Structure formats: C-alpha cells, structure tokens
C-alpha cells in the first residue's frame, strides 16, 4: 500500500524527529501539512518538542500563524458551547456534543490545533423541532437564507426526510454553523444506528470549565464509530486526512481502557458499522502507525470487503487522503477522489433513491436553478 508522503507522516506522527531538514524540504512539508489541515497541530507539536524557533529562518512565522489559528478555533468552539448553553440553560434537555466539540469537552488530544469551529449536537428525535425553534428564536437562521437563497424546497425536504439532521443553522452575529442531529447515520442508508441507544449510552462531560458542564458526549466506542462513519461512509474521503488523525488519536486515547476493543467490535457489529470500522483500523494503522492491537485488527477482518474491493480501496484511499504539492502532478488523487465520491453516495442511499436524487439535481440544472 502506498503511504502518505514521508515528511508529512513524520510531522504528524513524530514531529520531534523533523530536524536538520533543508529549506526546500520544509517548504514542501509545511505546504502538505497545511493542505491536509494539520499544520496548526504540527506547529503545536513542534513547539512542544522544543527548539521550534531555531529550525530554519523564516519557518517560525508560518508556524506561529498556524498555531494562533488553531488556538483561535478552539476559543470559538468553546464559546459557541457557552452560547448554546445560554439558549437552553433553563430547559431539561440532554444535549450530546459530537465531533470537534465533543473532543474538546472530553479532552481527546486530537483537539489541539483542530481548525473547525462548527458545532454538531445530537438530541432526541422528538426534541428536534423544539431545539430548532429555540435556536431560530435566539438569533440563528437557516444557512441558505443567510446566503440570500430561499429556504424550504427540495433540498430542505431532502435533509429533513432522508438525512440525519435538520438543515444547518448559522448564527447571525458570529457566523458559526450548528448542525443538529437526531442520529449519526442517515435513516435511508442500508445500515442504521439506533438513536435511542446512542443517547442512552452517552456520558456527562466532566470539566472544571463552566461552558462544558451539563453537556454529554457519546460513549468512547460510539464517538469513535461516529468519526469512522463520517470518513468512510458518509462523506468524501478526499480531504479527510484530519479525520484519520482524529481516529488515530482516539485509538491512542481509548485503546488503553479495559475492554475498549471488545466493546468497539461488538458495537460496530450491532450498529452494522463493521465495514467502515475495518477501513479505519486498517488505514489508521498503515498510514499513521495508530496503535491498534493485533487482536483487534484480526477481529475486524471479518468485516472486510471481498478481496478485489479491498485491493481497490488500498489503492484509492491513500491517494485520496494524501495532499499533493502544488508544483507536483496530482492526477492520481483526482481520480481516486472521484471514484470514492461515487462510492459514498451509493452507500448513503438505496439505489432507487440515489437515482431520484441525481435526477432532481440534473433537472434543476436544466432549469437553470442553483444546485445545492
């Protein structure tokens, strides 16, 4: 299997050994880290390793810039948690933080230098309408309306009916986006996750910080599986290096806990997420040296695809995940990304619905309307 560019991997996995590099080499590696969305994290790790300012002239400026971006992103995310808490402060409502907000609240180390300030929450399905209304009353609005488009219509209905969230809302003043989910998988997918079970297993956040208290996060196995689903089933793999880094960190963080691996495998089985879990463990360990125990790798084998598919994925996934230097050719990555994109759509919807979805999009294009 083709790996990540060696210097990029070094920066992510063992930044302390990035010493004695030439300016040319640093220029390329920093570019790749920036493209892969991990430069802020790398900057923080290089500082922790010591001697960052002395590496080569001119480099420190770019690293400091990236470090400040990462810190700012975390401040914004944390503040958004405070503001959302203000909306629901007097209601008895179980809010489960997902993705970046959850990593921050639960203290998963992948939160350092993580750039997204968008926030994702999960609530019970019968609370969804109330939550949406409360946010709309408190200064959030439909993201599309904010961009000057009319809300409602086909895209809106598509979201509500087939996807696992209401259309994204944007805060009017801060421009931050919130996605409110009621499960972590689209109900139309061939595999579904039991939302009641997810909420039931969620654990309260333990923190000294006010803005984090009162929230919940998914239990460790579910938190990991959610990231896995997002990368290997739900979305595009292209540009997803950051997600694989998150998974690698979670493997290190949760992996020491008693029975984590048994619970993870069992949970993936129950939720029908074996296949994406297989991919995650396979590529996180192969590309980023994630410390997955042999027993877990072996146990996940039974979720693997037939050999030809596996060989194809082994070829496509590393190409789609690895950024390419601007001054080097990148045809392989484009084609790999394209093929994987088609695959993710196919997984997300039963074939007939996919046809309907594509047909409506195509129809709208003929009509000259904007596509979503």
């Amino acid at each position: 299997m083709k790996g990540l560019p060696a210097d990029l991997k070094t920066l992510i996995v063992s930044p302390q050994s990035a010493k004695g590099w030439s300016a040319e080499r640093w220029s390329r590696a920093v570019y790749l880290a920036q493209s892969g969305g991990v430069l802020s994290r790398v900057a923080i790790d290089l500082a922790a390793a010591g001697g960052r300012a002395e590496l080569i002239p001119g480099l420190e400026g770019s690293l400091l810039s990236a470090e400040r971006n990462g810190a700012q992103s975390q401040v914004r995310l944390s503040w958004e948690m405070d503001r959302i808490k203000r909306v629901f402060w007097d209601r008895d409502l179980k809010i489960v933080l997902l993705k970046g907000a959850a990593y921050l609240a639960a203290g998963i180390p992948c939160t350092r230098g993580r750039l997204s300030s968008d926030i994702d929450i999960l609530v019970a399905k019968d609370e969804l309408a109330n939550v949406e209304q409360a946010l709309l009353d408190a200064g959030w609005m439909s993201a599309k309306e904010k961009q000057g488009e009319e809300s409602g219509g086909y895209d809106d209905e598509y979201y509500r009916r087939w996807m696992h969230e209401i259309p994204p809302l944007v805060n009017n003043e801060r421009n931050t986006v919130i996605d409110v989910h009621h499960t972590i998988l689209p109900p139309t997918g061939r595999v579904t996750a039991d939302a009641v079970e997810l909420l039931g297993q969620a654990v309260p956040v333990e923190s000294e910080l006010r803005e984090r208290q009162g929230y919940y996060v998914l239990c460790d196995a579910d938190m990991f599986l959610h990231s896995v689903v997002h990368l290997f089933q739900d979305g595009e793999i292209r540009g997803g290096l950051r997600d694989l880094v998150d998974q690698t960190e979670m493997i290190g963080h949760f992996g020491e806990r008693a029975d984590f691996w048994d619970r993870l495998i069992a949970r993936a089985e129950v939720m029908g997420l074996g296949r994406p879990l297989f991919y995650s463990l396979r590529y996180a360990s192969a590309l980023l040296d994630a410390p997955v125990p042999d027993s877990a790798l072996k146990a996940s084998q039974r979720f693997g695809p037939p050999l030809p598919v596996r060989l194809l994925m082994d070829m496509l996934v590393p190409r789609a995940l690895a950024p390419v230097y601007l001054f080097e050719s990148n045809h392989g990555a484009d084609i790999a990304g394209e093929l994987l994109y088609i695959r993710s759509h196919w997984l997300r919807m039963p074939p007939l619905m996919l046809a309907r979805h594509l047909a409506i999009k195509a129809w709208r294009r003929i009509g000259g309307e904007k596509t979503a």
Partner: protein
Amino acid sequence: MLDVSTLWHVPEPDSLVWRSFDSYSLLFNERSGNTHVLDPLSREILDLLQEAPRDETSLVRELTSLLEGQDPEALAGAVHEALKAFDTAGLIFPAYHS
C-alpha cells in the same frame, strides 16, 4: 423566563482583561475573543454583578441611591439596556440558584 427578578452573575471574571482610557473602559473577553467598550455606567453595573449576583430590580435600587439626582426612570431604562447588551455579548449569565 427572564424578568426583572432574574439573577445575573459574571462567569469567570478572571478571563476579563481591562484597560481604561479617560472615562471609557476597554474590555477583552478571553473566553469569547471579543473586545467591548464600556461607558462609566455600564462599567459600574458589570462591577456590581461581578461582586455578587443581582437582579434588575436591586441593580436599579442600588444605582439610584448611588447616583443621587438622576432621573430614576431613565436610569432604569439604561440598566435594562445594559443587561440586554451584556447578555447578548455573553458577559453575564443567569445564575442557576436564586
């Protein structure tokens, strides 16, 4: 529900960084990353809330006795506006226990 008897407090006052210029105060909130400019009355209100949680009614009462000779109605209006602005900016939060 928020009314004149809602108790307000200033969460984590240590994260507020102050600078004073003439009669105005500049305030940087490290939790939000936002900068605010406060006139003397707003500054006084925030100082009082920082000292101990208070509701709107008692703020108006205290400030009326502090600023003798001010039109009480105008003062009540100013306090109400200031609380609204502080709440929107996230500088104050309803106190859970009254």
